[in-house]
């Protein structure tokens, strides 16, 4: 048997679970209820003010979540990667530990905590839950890049007269950008399509794009739901390309 044959099971898997569903999404999105070809589902989105509004809210929440994750995650990653400040592997595990528990469970528990303390559910609680869920995905790639960074770059900058502050801004930050961009990919993309968190943490007061896709599918409006899913895929695809150098960003995850 040739080596290349070993890849057959994977190809079959990818075909059934990735390619086929994508084709189905495309097929449903371009059909009306009777199975005739139409672009109406797509055009309907652009005249559906509800859907457009939800979409804008989703983007806003996703951007805010990503920004908060960068602001909290970068310093955390920097501290974790700094051997003088962090001498033990335990702290890293503590940061990763929440990822071991199912995100839905954590979200439910968070919602219960808010209820218990009588905090009103709304945008604040939604962002809290999202940051809580996605922060590790921002920390990890940045930590990875920072901890692998050759220390001699920082030393060279110091040697050339840079204060520790200047070393950080002129060398450490620019060189850790691949980590930040892969963090953005891993946080921004899933937050656009999430719906469970908003359901639990706002009682569906705030609807996200994922929520309306889910609602459409649940009420058997498969074609419009598929069209919305397709639009979201295209948007995520575009944002991935904008995030720039994919190779660097992927390396940051290894």
């Amino acid at each position, binding site marked *: 048997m040739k080596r290349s044959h070993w890849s057959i099971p994977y190809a079959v898997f990818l075909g059934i679970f990735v390619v086929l569903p994508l084709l189905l999404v495309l097929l449903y999105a371009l059909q009306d209820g009777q199975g005739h070809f139409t672009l109406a589902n797509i055009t309907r989105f652009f005249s559906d003010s509800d859907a457009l509004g939800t979409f804008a809210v989703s983007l806003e929440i996703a951007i805010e979540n990503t920004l908060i994750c960068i602001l909290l995650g970068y310093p955390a990653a920097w501290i974790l990667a700094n051997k003088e400040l962090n001498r033990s592997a335990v702290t890293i595990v503590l940061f990763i530990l929440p990822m071991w528990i199912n995100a839905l469970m954590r979200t439910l528990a968070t919602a219960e905590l808010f209820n218990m303390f009588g905090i009103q559910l709304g945008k604040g609680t939604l962002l809290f839950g999202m940051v809580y869920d996605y922060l590790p995905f921002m920390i990890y790639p940045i930590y990875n890049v920072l901890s692998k960074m*050759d220390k*001699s*770059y920082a*030393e*060279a*900058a*110091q*040697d*050339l*007269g*840079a*204060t520790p502050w*200047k070393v950080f801004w*002129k*060398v450490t930050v*620019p*060189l850790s950008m691949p980590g930040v961009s892969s963090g953005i990919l891993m946080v921004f993309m899933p937050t656009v399509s999430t719906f469970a968190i908003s359901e639990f943490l706002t009682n569906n007061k705030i609807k996200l794009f994922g929520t309306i896709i889910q609602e459409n599918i649940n009420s058997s409006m498969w074609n419009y739901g598929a069209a919305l899913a397709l639009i979201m895929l295209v948007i995520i695809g575009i944002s991935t390309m904008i995030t720039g150098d994919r190779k660097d960003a992927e390396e940051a995850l290894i």
Partner: protein
Amino acid sequence: MAGEEHIIDLRHVSKSFSGKVVLDDINLYIRKGEFVTLLGPSGCGKTTTLRLIAGFLAPDEGEILLDGKDISGIPPHKRPFNTVFQRYALFPHLDVYDNIAFGLKLQKVPSDEIDKRVRKVLKMVSMTDYEDRDVESLSGGQQQRVAIARALVNQPKILLLDEPLAALDLKMRKDMQIELKEMHDQLGITFIYVTHDQEEALTLSDTIVVMNEGRIQQIGTPTDIYNEPVNSFVADFIGESNILNATMIRDHRVSFIGHEFDCVDEGFGEGVPVDVVVRPEDIYFTQDPARAQFTAKVNSCTFKGVHYEMYVDTDNGYELMIQDYDAYPVGSTVMLYIEPDDIQVMVKERTCNTIEGRMKDATHVELLGGEFECLPQPGLEGGEEVIAEVAFDKVDLLDHQDEGELAGEVHFLLYKGDHYHLTILTEDGDHLWVDTDDIWDKGDLVGIDLAKEDIKIRRKNEA
């Protein structure tokens, strides 16, 4: 070109990393404008010394003076030194121009001035027209030039170079050596250069500091270090050499390889064991029996370009290396002599292993973290501190670490004409010196045993 004025003084500087002593009481001064090389094998402490001067490390003890003032508390970015790093450490997110301008921009030098200085320094390292290039698209040699330019553009008082040529191929290394030497002559600033390459050190330096195991072995000009090494480590590390056990018969007379020779050294005493070094190019062939001091049989002869390298077995069974412009056929018997001033006599650092230990009971002694049987020691009780002496040739080395009472590693080896002199590093970090006819390699793991009749014990406080 080097003045008498000191620019750097290291006084009693020591440094340990997690309990391991890396630098042990280093005393060193560097004169203004000098090209000083710190030379030694890896792990000798040379890079640590450089990093202490640069300020990336702080000494545990001792002080570092710049122009007579202690700079221990000054962080690296305020020290007027610039470093050329071993792996260049060019910033990958900046192009050649911005890499070089990095230091000047931090100092807020006006941009037309920056422009002028960057262009000037690029010209000096022959990299004009490379301003806009991405540093990662440059070859190793070009990156090296940019790294040198980036350091020199700041006009440092001292340029620190950490094995800057180690990653280049031989031809490029030779060219860069010449260029560095020229830059040093042109600029007149002090260069402190770290390398493990003795040839590089001999070529470039005004002064060489030979280091080993955290200690300075010898400081001197290249010719001093080559012609008059102070101990067998320096002799072995610098150039090719025949290092032999010898006995100083009296002043100007020394005996080795079973013959007596005239020499120029004096003051060692009479009948004192010493080491001698004879460089392979200093053993001469002769046809005149009256001049010959000993005979030998040629064992092998290899052409090395300029000269032939021959190994000969002397009439008393010692092997010597000889370099000569003429080849002598393998198997032939030749007559040889050595000029008195080509024999360099060195003090022996030790003539046997002297180990501190403690009696366990009347017939057992604890040494080097192991327990050895010894002959009954009347008058010594368990628990008493003792000194044990073991001759170099009485230490047994075993192939497997777990076969011996102690485990160790071959740390350094020296061929002495008819046997090897090994330095063994035990698991506990102690040294043991061994004479053996067997062939070991550096890094071999060995078991160590001592026979009871070979351990000579005396009470610690007895003279």
